[in-house]
């Protein structure tokens, strides 16, 4: 293969990939800071219903970003289910957002764990980008005024005492 042919082939591949890359360009924010106002979102839930931030006004919101392939997401699920059962009658809403995943795999994950609270697949990781979430699992504690009171990265089951404290902060 001579150099000119190689150069032509490289240019052709490069052009094709630049064209394809138009499908994946994205703008992300840095991680939402404690004290900042939570950004509005609309999430399509697994059951087909729509969920958005406004509908949780006046309630505390625990929003957790998870992926089926992530060991920490799997390890934290029993704790999250238990926490939901304990607080489902309080003024606290739990919401799971599936990120960095395929829709089918996330739906399998929700089914596997029998997630008892609303869960939806974040197509194109749009909500994750708005919230600055780059790694699962990340959990935000948002108070009834829509202010981020806490952000936690990793397996929340490792912080059971702090979790209860953080719930009190958003009530």
């Amino acid at each position, binding site marked *: 293969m001579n150099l000119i042919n190689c150069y032509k082939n490289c240019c052709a591949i490069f052009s094709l*990939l*630049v064209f394809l890359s138009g499908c994946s360009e994205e703008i*992300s924010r840095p991680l939402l800071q404690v004290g900042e106002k939570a950004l509005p979102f609309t999430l399509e839930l697994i059951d087909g219903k729509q969920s958005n931030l406004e509908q949780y006004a006046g309630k505390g919101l625990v929003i957790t970003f998870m992926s089926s392939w992530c060991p920490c997401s799997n390890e934290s699920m029993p704790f999250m289910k238990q926490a939901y059962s304990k607080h489902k009658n309080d003024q606290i809403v739990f919401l799971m957002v599936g990120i960095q995943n395929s829709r089918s795999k996330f739906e399998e994950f929700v089914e596997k764990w029998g997630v008892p609270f609303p869960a939806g697949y974040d197509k194109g990781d749009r909500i994750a*980008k708005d919230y600055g979430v780059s790694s699962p*699992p990340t959990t935000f504690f948002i108070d009834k005024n829509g202010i981020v009171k806490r952000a*936690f990265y*990793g397996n929340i089951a490792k912080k059971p005492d702090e979790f209860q404290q953080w719930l009190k902060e958003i009530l």
Partner: protein
Amino acid sequence: MGGGAAVWGGFSSFFSIWQVCILQISPFFIAFIVGIYLATVGKKADPEIRRWLLIPCITYGIGFSVFYSLLIASGLNISRPLIHNIGLLRVVSGIIILFVGLYILLVNRISFLGKIHTPLLLSTLSLLIGVTFALVYSPCITPMLSDIMGIASQRNTAVEGWYMAFWYGLGVSIALCMTSVALILFAGRQEIVLRNANLIKNICGIILLILAVMNITGLMRHYKAFVLGFVL
């Protein structure tokens, strides 16, 4: 938590369940280092080979750790443009990885590439691979990384968090480089490997091309969902 603990945290995560997350980059780095080794092995004697691999491993570790830590330390002002443009940077990373993959595929076929195949060039490519892998890697959060991110994401403690994340990233890099070099030392002089060196080198190049395409097109999420999910 000190720098030593962070290095150990990163290093040990490589040999634990967290390898599932590191599979986002580990097979591709091994493909890169094996590819450049096999592109060189026919030309240079053993002692030189070590020099040809050692420096690239160091530059990879520097490139990866610096950019990985900057992305973790989202509370730093310097990190914000990186995070804001991460989508575009991943596409650019994909294009760089594409050219590195093509280089490995073509280095023994195009005489010009053969002439520029020097330790300096390989070290530069490794530095670029380190930077691009940091940009494309979105880890799940190990217990130690959980603590580091908690510090690094807040503006008032971001510098401390960046420092810890740097050492954590270096720990991951050291483990990855050690594993790759051990693989080469163990298998690199086997008769079957040397007999099929060109084929294996080409496969390594193709593996990098696959990573490039996944990053450029956004298919990386499916790799995570299906391949990493299958391992888990």
